[in-house]
């Protein structure tokens, strides 16, 4: 049976250098649940290391969790990779780490905390997660699709680190599953104006870095099960699945 799923699939944890230290997996899951979201996605910058714990926290809270990542391409465009499970994510992680250089400076960029279900720090990731990989945007989309994930260009309305800002327009032939609009855009123009659609499906997620930003915007999907393949169908308007609202 088709049902309405409120999904905020772009949330950073305390692993992202710019993510607030209070963004632990358990805190994210509790907040999302309290807001009535049905599905969330964890998308830390170039890293996956809090995804499995958030998935478990989601199970405890009856909340679907997509394990994802926000990858930075060599053109410095951000792209969301969204997967059903950790195995695909870890395969992407391998390729991202092989193409990411540099060491984090915590004073400059912030702490990159890997935490467990008890909110204890198990490790401080020392890679330069704020940096760019040496993977082209085309290669990243190809890898995501080879692992059965969704490839969605992040906050395309923003100038910095967005596909449109960095590359001027959506590259021809780039096989994206959708474009994400930021909460700032939705607040200002989103209710009536989607000039950048270029025919691609649109979504909006919060890109939360702080607890209070979770669910600031979300997308409502009409789908049967909470899976990548169902969301893909909704984005493509297939088999009765669809995107029914932005909030």
């Amino acid at each position: 049976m088709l049902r309405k799923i409120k999904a905020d699939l772009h949330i950073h944890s305390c692993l992202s250098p710019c993510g607030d230290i209070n963004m632990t997996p358990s805190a994210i899951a509790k907040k999302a649940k309290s807001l009535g979201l049905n599905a969330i996605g964890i998308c830390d910058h170039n890293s996956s290391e809090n995804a499995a714990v958030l998935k478990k926290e989601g199970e405890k809270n009856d909340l679907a969790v997509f394990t994802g990542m926000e990858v930075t391409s060599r053109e410095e465009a951000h792209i969301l990779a969204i997967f059903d499970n950790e195995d695909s994510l870890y395969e992407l992680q391998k390729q991202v780490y092989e193409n990411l250089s540099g060491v984090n400076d915590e004073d400059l960029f912030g702490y990159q905390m890997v935490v467990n279900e008890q909110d204890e720090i198990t490790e401080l990731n020392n890679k330069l997660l704020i940096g760019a990989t040496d993977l082209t945007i085309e290669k990243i989309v190809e890898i995501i699709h080879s692992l059965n994930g969704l490839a969605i260009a992040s906050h395309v309305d923003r100038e910095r680190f967005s596909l449109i800002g960095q590359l001027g327009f959506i590259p021809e032939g780039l096989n994206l599953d959708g474009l994400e609009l930021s909460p700032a855009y939705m607040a200002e123009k989103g209710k009536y104006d989607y000039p950048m659609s270029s025919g691609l499906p649109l979504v909006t997620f919060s890109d939360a870095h702080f607890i209070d930003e979770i669910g600031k915007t979300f997308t409502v999907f009409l789908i049967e099960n909470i899976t990548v393949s169902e969301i893909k169908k909704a984005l493509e308007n297939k088999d009765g699945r669809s995107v029914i609202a932005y909030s």
Partner: protein
Amino acid sequence: MSTLKNIAERFNLNVVSGDTEREVSGGYSSDLLSDVIANAQKDNIWITLQTHLNIVAVANLKELAGIILVNGRQPEETTLNKAKQENIPILLTELPTFEIVGKLYEYGVKGIKKS
């Protein structure tokens, strides 16, 4: 004003595509293609580190004189093929942006048109 050819010879730039007889009206430097679309002027030489295929389309759209890729960066294969096909000059330098822009400016290539 100078042609691309003069500039290429003077600063030892490696021309990998396009016709270099074009006159250069001035220069623009940015790695945000959206910004180049908004602000570069016709016949500008554009200095960037971006190597993606979209740089050819931007140069075409803005009728730029050519593109200098800095820091020893090579264009992607798709970029180079398209640049050859569209006759968009791509020139390569080992120098970083600051150095090549400084040299061009000293040589008389300015960023803002004098009225």
